[in-house]
């Protein structure tokens, strides 16, 4: 199989982390000048595999061929020398450095910086022009938006002479428009003869841009197919190992009374930065309100204010008609008591105590309920009993109420948090990033549970950076940008393009017009 037209080939690569077999007998062949997708659920071993190719980890077994030549890659330097560049999921950039300094780090061209810097500047300007990667080389990386930081990463790889570019989940932090721009860049790279390997768990991206796709499941490579010969459903089935519903089936919502309302809410943080600007929102019984937006545009603060963790600087919040601001109920604890459930955005920081067992986590926030107490001590039997109930209802695996929370996978941890908040039967449920880091199979389950709660007449707020998720779950969608609500629209009227533009700060009407124009030109 090894021919001159193969850019990268792996043969029977194995990698263990302790007892975990992260990569099992992986073989892969990537053609030169193609965009090759590698898709799989979280934890399927995609990133591990690519880290091996990049020399960040060493394979325990197996061979790597670059351009048909066997290659021993035991550190990133060897990989760079072989012409492989990687854009990591979490950018490997120094925020306090300029773009130029970041690019030359490791390839400074001499012990003094002066000469190498000038050369690098010229070379960078050439690269930026050739691949339409505009970035100001003297800007501080910390000041750049994520889309541009990603370009810096690509430039870094190209500057080191990369022929094969690996991108690990590159669109996780981008708006759909930014992602499209990235895809145009990748197409340019391919046209110039570079090879691109795209690691992702998003089917949309695989279908949109790749030539070939390899599917991984539980550390194994389960299929290699040409993109044009497959479809989303087939890929999803290959990823999960059974057929999956990609879209949530639900009835039309029947909104009832307003349960919670925000009026003119502002929030200023301790650095006097205005994080929320004049927010007006209503949560209605029997309806799911989705908040879309690129992360960091005020969604976290919104959730924390509604959850009683921080207080607004101005504005009013009512709960079932009663004003909350200034009331004794307005705290995370007080709100739970009057029927508000909160699944925090970050389950590791705020949702769970990882070193506590599942049953201890089951009662967090509800630990003073009578059922969990026996006089002055905790009722351990009841805790375990309740946890077992939750585990059964939410199909948590492994079904062990005494296992520490960090012994569960991301999806199962999320199920534990959801079970805790949903099973206390709240009237209003706040959910931040319901399926972040959760497998497709579990996503389907979580979405169904949320719809079921909605149909039972509860008001639900879902904050998510996954545009697909907001579109398929929500009945009404509000888009946040820079701390403000850019617009609110009915889910039936929402298109990906329209939401994408709004997420970049374009107002609803302008977004509708622009989306129409875009559609007309396509």
């Amino acid at each position: 199989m090894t021919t001159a037209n193969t850019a990268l080939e792996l043969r029977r690569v194995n990698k263990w982390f302790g007892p975990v077999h992260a990569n099992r007998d992986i073989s892969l062949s990537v053609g030169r000048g193609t965009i090759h997708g590698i898709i799989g659920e979280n934890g399927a071993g995609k990133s591990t595999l690519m880290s091996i190719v990049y020399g960040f980890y060493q394979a325990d077994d197996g061979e790597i061929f670059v351009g048909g030549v066997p290659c021993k890659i035991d550190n990133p330097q060897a990989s760079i020398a072989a012409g492989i560049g990687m854009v990591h999921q979490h950018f490997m950039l120094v925020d306090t450095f300029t773009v130029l300094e970041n690019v030359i780090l490791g390839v400074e061209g001499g012990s003094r910086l002066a000469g190498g810097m000038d050369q690098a500047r010229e070379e960078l300007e050439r690269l930026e022009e050739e691949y339409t990667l505009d970035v100001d080389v003297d800007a501080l990386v910390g000041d750049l938006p994520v889309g541009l930081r990603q370009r810096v990463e690509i430039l870094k790889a190209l500057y080191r002479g990369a022929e094969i570019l690996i991108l690990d989940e590159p669109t996780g932090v981008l708006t759909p428009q930014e992602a499209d721009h990235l895809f145009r860049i990748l197409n340019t790279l391919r046209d110039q003869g570079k090879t691109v390997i795209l690691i992702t768990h998003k089917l949309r991206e695989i279908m949109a841009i790749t030539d070939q796709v390899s599917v991984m499941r539980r550390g194994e490579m389960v299929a290699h197919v040409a993109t044009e010969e497959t479809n989303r459903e087939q890929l999803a089935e290959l990823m999960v190992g059974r057929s999956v519903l990609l879209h949530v089936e639900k009835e039309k919502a029947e909104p009832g009374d307003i349960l919670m309302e925000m009026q003119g809410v502002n929030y200023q943080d301790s650095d006097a930065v205005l994080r929320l600007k004049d927010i007006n929102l209503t949560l209605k019984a029997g309806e799911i309100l989705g908040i879309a937006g690129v992360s960091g545009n005020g969604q976290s603060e919104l959730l924390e204010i509604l959850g009683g963790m921080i207080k607004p600087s101005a504005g009013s919040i009512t709960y079932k008609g009663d004003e909350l601001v200034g009331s004794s109920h307005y705290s995370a604890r007080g709100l739970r008591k009057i029927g508000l459930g909160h699944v925090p955005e970050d389950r590791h920081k705020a949702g769970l105590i990882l070193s506590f067992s599942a049953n201890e986590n089951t009662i967090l926030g509800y630990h003073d309920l009578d059922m969990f107490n026996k006089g002055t001590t905790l009722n351990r039997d009841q805790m375990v009993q309740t946890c077992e109930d939750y585990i059964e209802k939410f199909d948590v695996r492994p079904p062990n109420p005494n296992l520490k929370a960090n012994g569960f996978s991301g999806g199962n941890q999320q199920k534990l948090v959801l079970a805790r908040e949903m099973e206390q039967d709240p009237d209003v449920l706040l959910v931040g990033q319901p399926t972040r880091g959760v497998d497709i199979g579990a996503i389907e389950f979580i979405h169904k549970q949320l719809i079921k709660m909605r149909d039972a007449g509860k008001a639900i707020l879902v904050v998510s950076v996954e545009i697909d998720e907001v579109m398929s779950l929500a009945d009404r969608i509000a888009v946040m940008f820079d701390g403000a609500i850019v617009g609110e629209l009915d889910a039936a009227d929402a298109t990906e393009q329209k939401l994408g533009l709004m997420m970049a700060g374009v107002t609803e009407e302008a977004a509708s017009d622009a989306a129409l124009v875009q559609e007309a030109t396509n």
Partner: protein
Amino acid sequence: METFELTVLLLDATFRVATPLVLVALAGLFSERAGVVDIGLEGKMLGAAFAAAAAATTFGSAWVGLCAGIMTSLALSSLHAYACVTHKGNQVVSGMAINIVVAGLTPTLGFAWFKLGGRTPALNGDARFSSITLPFAEAVRDIPIIGYIYAELISGHNIIVYIAAAAVPIVAYVLYRTRFGLRVRAVGENPHAVDTAGISVNTLRYQALAVTGFLCGIAGTYLSTAHGAGFIRDMTAGKGYLALAALIFGKWKPVPTLFACLLFAFTDALQARLQGVDLPIVGVIPVQFIQALPYILTVLLLAGFVGKANPPKAIGEPYIKER
């Protein structure tokens, strides 16, 4: 004219007090910019002071003392690196351990070797770094103001004072204009970026800590063989911590750190001069209060006036490749 001369003398004392602070603060700058907390500056300086005095008195040469001081400090610095970089130990614990070990070991060894209750014998002649009179210092002394400043303030210090003065621009140059400096700054901010760029994080941190050890060694030597004339137990008296404070006050940058050191040194020189002086209105201030001034100033500065300090982002965290 009298105030002018007094000011010059005060600044002259400031320079002498500031020298070890500047060297140690710059030492800490390398370590902390590379992402390794170095609370063990104090111990390294103390160890170097003892080794320098012991070697100088034994061999009768201050330069041998300097070598011994630097070697000792380098050894302690390597120990810190071995614990925190190779074995990813807690950096504060390791630094504190070095401080405690050295504080106990130096008087013990001193007592065993010199039988002087933990001191080393008084140094004189070539065993001490003596003052250097710069060229023309005497000739220009009579030129008003400038000549006097040159002769009294600029000239007449020992070699280490001049080394410290030269160290500031050299460190600034290395940090901002060389490959090594770029990498040190990068590894303190984001070691993952350094690792993926194909540079060994551990080697880089070892190198930075070696520079730290080197500079601490010079500072310690200064205390016992230039500023003082022999080793006395606990002679560093918290200067390592004061230098750390100056480093934070100077926001981990060489030139602001220099000024922070000068400020601390100035208050120290001032307190020496104010002792027993009858001030207008307030009268004679108790000596204990005056002696506490530099430390009160440190607390006030760090608590209130620094503003938001932005330490290197990866400081204090051992580098572990995540799974």
